[in-house]
């Protein structure tokens, strides 16, 4: 990459002034350093704002994740990057190109695994890959060579000549991933790549994505699974209600937003007993920096779970269950996006 330079004038012109600044976004990143460069990126559907002025960069070779509850705006963001949804406001460049002007050029270097798999139900497994290769201007011979190789890669060789519909969810997902690779993309967009898959299928997909990353393919994915984010992402942003609320590596986020350990206390609650959470928290006061009362347990955020549990015992608390665990990305997520379902 060349030295940091000013973005081209054309890009500056349409960059909206935006107040938010996310600590993890390198201030000097430019559209030319980043595979994806977004500043004040906004998506509106009529009067509804689905993505509200987000800033992020994805560097070449990186695995970047969007984490966020339902409706946070992850898919809307991915679709703008994939150039299948016009940008409402702000700046977005992919490979240094603008979606509105160079959509076809961007797409020719992009692999896309959409949230809802858009397989061609009228075609067989192999034909799905062949025709996709043709859409990318591959010769039939080259399309076939790659298709055979990719079916091997996602372990679907035996199903080559089957129709798509009877495939299991996991197989369909793998087929969509294979299809996204037919043009040997340098950037892969994956919208919830493993939602609905069983553990075996998820691990297979993770393994394949990891191998792609090893080969230098840049990954940009969304997920609801914290373990997936921890496994795959070098860096991620948490989105909530159309905005980015945090950014960093999984490790940084845990350090920043939760304690090293979390102590989980369960108390027996007798039939008909009124809510005593206020009372409980009162008793725990001063033991740790932060508590959270869930319907079935109390979470105590602390640097040393054992010590805090002992202190609670000394205060006369008698929990029926005690669990000390490490602070996780899930704690970060729930802290940032709230415990209740936002719909």
């Amino acid at each position, binding site marked *: 990459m060349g030295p940091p330079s000013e973005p081209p004038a054309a890009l500056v012109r349409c960059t909206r002034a935006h107040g938010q600044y996310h600590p993890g976004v390198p201030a000097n990143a430019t559209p030319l350093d980043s595979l994806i460069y977004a500043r004040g990126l906004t998506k509106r*559907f009529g009067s509804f704002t689905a993505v509200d002025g987000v800033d992020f960069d994805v560097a070449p070779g990186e695995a970047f994740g969007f984490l966020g509850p339902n409706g946070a705006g992850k898919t809307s963001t991915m*679709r703008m990057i*994939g150039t*299948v*949804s*016009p940008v409402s406001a702000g700046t977005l460049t992919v490979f240094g190109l603008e979606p509105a002007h160079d*959509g*076809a*050029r961007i*797409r*020719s270097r*992009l692999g*896309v695994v*959409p949230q809802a798999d*858009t*397989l*061609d*139900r*009228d*075609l067989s497994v192999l*034909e799905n890959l*062949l*025709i*996709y290769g*043709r*859409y*990318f*201007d*591959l*010769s039939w*011979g*080259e399309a076939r060579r790659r298709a055979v190789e990719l079916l091997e890669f996602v372990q679907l060789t035996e199903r080559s000549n089957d129709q798509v519909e009877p495939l299991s969810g996991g197989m369909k997902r793998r087929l969509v991933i294979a*299809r996204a690779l037919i*043009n*040997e993309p340098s950037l892969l967009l994956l919208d919830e790549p493993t939602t609905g898959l069983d553990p075996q299928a998820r691990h297979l997909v993770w393994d394949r994505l990891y191998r792609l990353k090893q080969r230098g393919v840049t990954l940009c994915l969304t997920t609801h699974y914290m373990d997936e984010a921890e496994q795959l992402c070098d860096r991620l942003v948490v989105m909530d209600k159309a905005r980015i609320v945090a950014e960093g590596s999984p490790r940084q986020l845990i350090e920043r937003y939760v304690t090293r350990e979390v102590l989980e206390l369960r108390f027996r609650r007798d039939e008909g007993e009124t809510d005593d959470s206020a009372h409980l928290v009162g008793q725990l006061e001063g033991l740790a920096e932060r508590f959270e009362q869930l319907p079935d347990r109390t979470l105590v955020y602390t640097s040393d779970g054992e010590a805090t549990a002992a202190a609670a015992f000394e205060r006369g608390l008698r929990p029926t269950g005690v669990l000390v665990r490490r602070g996780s990305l899930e704690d970060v997520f729930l802290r940032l996006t709230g415990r209740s379902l936002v719909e």
Partner: protein
Amino acid sequence: MAALRISPPLVLIRPTRMVERNLLVYRRSFMVIFSGFFEPLFYLFSMGFGVGALVGSVQLGDGTSVSYAVFVAPALLASSAMNGAIYETSNNFFGKLKYAKIYDAVIATPMSLADVARGEILWALLRGSLYVLGFLAVIGVLGIGGLGLISSPMGLLAFPAAMVVGYGFAGAGMAATTFVRKWQDFDFLQLAIMPMFLFSGTFYPISAYPAALQVVVECTPLYRGVHLIRALTTGTPDVWIAIDVLYLLAMGTIGLAIVSKRLSKLLLA
């Protein structure tokens, strides 16, 4: 390794990808394609020869008198081109757009929406050309039998003319389909197609109508198609055939432009 690129011009090549996709689908059910082949022939036999036996001959615009079968055959050819185009661009296109969601996958590739629209029109035309050629072959064979359904060498132009008719209706039909919300809406399309088929000078000369009504019928696209093809097969061209061609080409091209616009509204939210 570098992708093997097919040399330009992509603007002409890319639409053919949609044709390839459809060929992959239909190579397993090729017989379905042939069903559309028989309808115009059934009409030809029942109307051309059945009714023709009662009617005798019909006078063309320039005063020449031709047998009823010769009169009706070009009209059936035009109708067949229309029906083929409409069939492919209404139900089939709608199914792919709204239910099979074929294009949701295509838009993530370098293909543009204009490529998709042009490709599907091309496919409709290719499919229609099978019916047109089949029909022409049958009436050609009958011609050898002394029936002379094509009474002029100009009749050879009936094939490209039928393609022009197909293009006009494919463009318009596809544009209309992008506004359709549910299958039942296609009943309205039939409500436009059926009367055109019956009243556009297909089965009798429009001189049977009062003058005002004649003008209305002359403005319908199928009338223009029938006029064009009949002028060629009977060897009685007039200056109006230029209007016919322009009218139908404009209809197809405007339709295509509308389709590209509408698809971007429907698919690129």
